[in-house]
């Protein structure tokens, strides 16, 4: 009997039962971590824009405050319960958040007429509507009157926007004239040259027009900023806000689910298609979304063909010798080089080297102001292309290597050239594998931040790299990027606590974009797989 049990235990280890458990546990751990990450991001990101109820806290000492409860905890020293409240009204209190100790709170209530104003600056206002001033002195106002005045103010803002657009057009013209002048001077034209004189005249003309428009803008601005809304905070202190600075006004405690949903949709719309405000902690992510997608796109244009062609050469054309083996090892190792190293290389080679040389060649008159010799979306994309190209090379090589020799021979024996075999049979067959590598490369590129920070990403780009102005795609421009945006608002912002929701939202969006691009590529790969590898060999 003893013998048998020992035998059984031996079998237990020999048949690898524990190994199955360990590998299963490892898989479960990995899945759990991934799920946890997604859940944390989702839980924090999805609810950010849902309007929360406003609560007024009557305190035993000092004026009452109103805000949204963020979290509850215990004071680490006294052990008393306390709540963190977002109180907003940054211009009054200096802080957005405040911890209130439970013993200090005398009473709480949720008044229906609590108002939240979203402002262009200084964050939100939490308070109660008191007065309206339409240029003829303040007088008490109702919610409906306030809404009507708000709509009027927005309508009246339109001429101002027009003037603003004119101003920026003039600015663009002025810049063009300045560059033309610089070019002429660089080529040695003197001040009495007719071309220079004409440009000077044009410059003066634009300047005069500019002054005129600025004056018009100021007049309009003064007029419109005279219309204000007067609010009172929970403690009764007054907050005056010009109507045109109000982006949204609502009474969250009165909103039902449909109203809240509508509000949420509006916020989402702003997130996707709006410009950022308040040093990126509010408003939209449109420039960052465009920048990220465009960068990945440009990166793909360079990295995909380059990687595939290199892989094809290594596998199909290069004679297998020590040199090819060395190159292969080098390529594999390149995939493991830290990304910041690529960033530094990109800065040194693309930005200063190539960009600098191109500046000398094409824009010498603008120097020392660099045109191409500074970070831009092209250089950042090229740097990332360099970073991802090893992955594509390796994938291409593996995919080509996995094709049975018989297929190759079959094509050649029919009188096909090597190139015909490659383009008609081998590459289509290898395409699913190549696509898999490319998906990995793309996902990595979309999430990479470090090399971008030194090759062209900025906190706030004045203009998109893609717009309606000729030549439409501006590869030399600096751009915004979701990954950098997360770093910037989460860790570089002056008001980190207020920026936290935005960090989660941006993270969620970045993850979604990566998923979306990967899903598209995976769909493409599966289509190819169905087409080229049915059955077995």
């Amino acid at each position, binding site marked *: 009997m003893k013998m048998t049990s020992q035998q059984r235990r031996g079998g237990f280890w020999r048949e690898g039962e524990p190994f199955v458990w360990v590998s299963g546990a490892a898989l479960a751990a990995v899945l759990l971590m991934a799920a946890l990450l997604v859940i944390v991001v989702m839980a924090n990101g999805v609810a950010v824009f849902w309007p929360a109820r406003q609560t007024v806290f009557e305190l035993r000492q000092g004026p009452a405050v109103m805000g949204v409860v963020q979290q509850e905890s215990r004071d680490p020293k006294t052990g008393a319960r306390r709540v963190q409240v977002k109180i907003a009204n940054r211009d009054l209190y200096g802080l957005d958040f405040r911890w209130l100790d439970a013993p200090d709170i005398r009473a709480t209530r949720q008044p229906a007429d609590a108002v939240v104003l979203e402002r262009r600056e200084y964050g939100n206002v939490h308070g109660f509507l008191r007065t309206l001033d339409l240029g003829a002195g303040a007088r008490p106002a109702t919610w409906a009157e306030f809404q009507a005045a708000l709509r009027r103010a927005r309508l009246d803002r339109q001429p101002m926007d027009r003037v603003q657009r004119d101003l920026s057009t003039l600015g663009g013209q002025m810049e063009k004239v300045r560059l033309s002048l610089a070019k002429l001077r660089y080529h040695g034209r003197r001040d009495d040259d007719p071309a220079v004189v004409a440009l000077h005249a044009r410059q003066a003309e634009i300047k005069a027009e500019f002054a005129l428009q600025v004056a018009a803008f100021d007049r309009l601005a003064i007029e419109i900023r005279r219309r204000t809304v007067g609010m009172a905070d929970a403690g009764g202190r007054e907050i005056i806000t010009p109507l045109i600075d109000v982006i949204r006004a609502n009474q969250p405690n009165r909103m039902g689910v449909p109203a809240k949903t509508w509000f949420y949709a509006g916020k989402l719309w702003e997130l996707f298609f709006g410009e950022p405000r308040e040093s990126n902690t509010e408003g939209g992510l449109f420039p960052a979304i465009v920048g990220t997608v465009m960068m990945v796109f440009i990166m793909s244009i360079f990295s995909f063909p380059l990687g595939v062609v290199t892989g094809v050469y290594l596998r199909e054309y290069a004679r297998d010798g020590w040199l090819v083996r060395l190159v292969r090892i080098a390529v594999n190792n390149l995939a493991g080089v830290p990304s910041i190293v690529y960033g530094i290389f990109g800065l040194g080679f693309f930005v200063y080297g190539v960009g600098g040389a191109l500046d000398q060649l094409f824009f010498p008159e603008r120097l020392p102001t660099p045109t191409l010799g500074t970070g831009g979306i092209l250089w950042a994309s090229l740097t990332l292309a360099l970073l991802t190209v090893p992955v594509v090379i390796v994938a291409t090589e593996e995919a080509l290597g996995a094709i049975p020799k*018989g297929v190759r021979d079959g*094509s050649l024996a029919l*009188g096909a050239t090597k190139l015909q075999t490659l383009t008609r049979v081998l590459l289509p*067959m290898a395409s699913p594998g190549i696509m898999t590598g490319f998906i990995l490369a793309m996902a990595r590129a979309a999430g990479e931040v470090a090399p971008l920070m030194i090759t062209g990403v900025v906190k706030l780009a004045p203009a998109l790299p893609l717009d309606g102005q000729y030549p439409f795609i501006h590869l030399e421009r600096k751009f915004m990027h979701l990954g950098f945006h997360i770093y910037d608002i989460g860790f570089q912002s002056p008001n980190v606590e207020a920026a936290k929701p935005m960090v989660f939202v941006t993270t969620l969006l970045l993850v979604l974009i990566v998923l979306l691009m990967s899903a598209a590529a995976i769909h493409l790969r599966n289509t190819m797989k169905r087409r080229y590898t049915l*059955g077995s060999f």
Partner: protein
Amino acid sequence: MEHPAICTIAEPVIAMSNLRLFYGPAEALHGITMGVPRQRVTALIGPSGCGKSTLLRCVNRMNDLIDGVRVVGSLSLDQTEINDPALDVIELRRRIGMVFQKSNPFPKSVYENVVYGLRIAGVNQREVLDEAVEKSLAGAGLWNEVKDRLHESALGLSGGQMQRLCIARAIAVQPEVLLMDEPCSALDPRSTARIEELIVELRRDFTIIIVTHNMQQAGRVSDFTAFLYEGNLVEYGPTRGIFTKPVCKQTEDYITGRFG
């Protein structure tokens, strides 16, 4: 060099004269001299590693694809020297088709598989291609089975059908010679029988060289048989003669299954 065990063929399609092949320093074929008769089936037999596949691959220069292979001696197709470095290999391979041991259809439709050789030769007229597909598939005895699924993937066919598709693909470009490298070794007996019938039919239009491990098969399908052993051509002659009255002891031992 006359040899009692090696018959001479009048007006051969392919003539080899003292053909030697080296893999690097190792000599794999030691001076083969033989002629392949027109519109006949010639079987190459011999134990594994005797060089029969290597010899077959010399004919359409597939050995070029292997690094370090060097061929010495003369090998001609209708008086054209095949080993001439200036010869257009692409053109040669259009004149000499090949069917491999393992069927190797491309991951394309049945139709595209058959017209592959024509397309790469630049033929693109729809009518020409359609006609070639029907003719080749009929020639390979596959037309009735696949005529309704011409545009479905070739990889959905059965093993025997795939091999016949490869034969159809090879004859679609109308080669003069068809090389077959153990075409039935991966097939079940029924598919094998089907392909053997096909080989006999194809003999009317093509010169066929077939490498086989199966003695019965060589006896059934071939007109001439060459026995190779360790890179030497030991015996070559009409199949009936070789199987009934072999000249060499070695041949007899191999055929009767005493070795190999």
